[in-house]
């Protein structure tokens, strides 16, 4: 009971963002140096600010785990290209005031990895969500978790 209470307090203070990695095709070799790109699926609407934020947070998460994100065409670098199939920041006010799933945030994406020669090297899916947190929790924390799972996809064990 005490542990559950502590968990709830931590969730409220720090946020309860989570992200899961599903490996569709395991990587043939770890990709420690990649160029990164992504496109929202035709059914997904993302403005320039959201794209910039996602790019920044993913780059930061990958770099902090030792994956170098480099410009496209860099010699010796593979590539990871994502298709964003769900980008739903939800409603922070509803998460904070009502909770119980109201205003929940979701993210879904599929990532194709290519080796430096341009051959397919692996594929994975990363799904994230947020149901509660301090002030309703920030969607940024979901995107950071997504970046961490993507890093695990690129370099398993990191």
């Amino acid at each position: 009971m005490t542990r559950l209470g502590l968990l709830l307090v931590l969730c409220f203070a720090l946020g309860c963002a989570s992200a899961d990695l599903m490996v569709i095709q395991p990587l043939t070799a770890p990709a420690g140096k990649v160029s990164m790109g992504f496109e929202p699926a035709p059914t997904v609407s993302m403005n320039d600010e959201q794209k910039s934020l996602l790019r920044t947070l993913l780059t930061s998460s990958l770099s902090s785990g030792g994956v170098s994100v480099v410009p496209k065409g860099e010699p010796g670098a593979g590539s990871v290209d994502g298709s964003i199939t769900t980008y739903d920041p939800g409603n922070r006010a509803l998460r904070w005031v009502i909770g119980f799933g109201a205003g929940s945030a979701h993210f879904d994406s599929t990532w194709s990895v290519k080796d430096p020669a341009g051959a397919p090297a692996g594929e994975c899916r990363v799904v994230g969500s947020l149901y509660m947190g301090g002030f309703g929790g920030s969607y940024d924390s979901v995107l950071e978790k997504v970046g961490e799972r993507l890093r695990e996809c690129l370099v398993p064990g990191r």
Partner: protein
Amino acid sequence: MACGLWAALGIVLWAGSGCATLVRGTHQDVMIDSVPPGAEVLEPSSGGQWVTPISVSFPRKHRHELVVSKPGYQPQQVYIRSEVPFTWWAIDAFTLCISTLVDALLGGLYDLEPAHVTVVLDPAPAPAATSP
């Protein structure tokens, strides 16, 4: 004795709250980095201009829209948001929101996010060949 301790704790919490502006100031350092380095960072609204890597002290109160560019690469827009962090809001609540108002007006209440930006610039597409 116990009452005295609780009263002292209450006074410390009350006096210590609402000091986001005093503790953190009205500006926040944001680290801007780029791959490759040496890119120009421009904030059109303020006219600010810097070269990466750089730590820029931005006012906390406003969002910032930056353009990062380098010859031969595609320019990128970067957005730094101004958000109210839960921690300071909760601390300020001890003074019945009076200090929340003060911190909000002065800017100390806000956090700039993300505080560290690494921009990876992709090469500009080769110009299309022009026919004679």
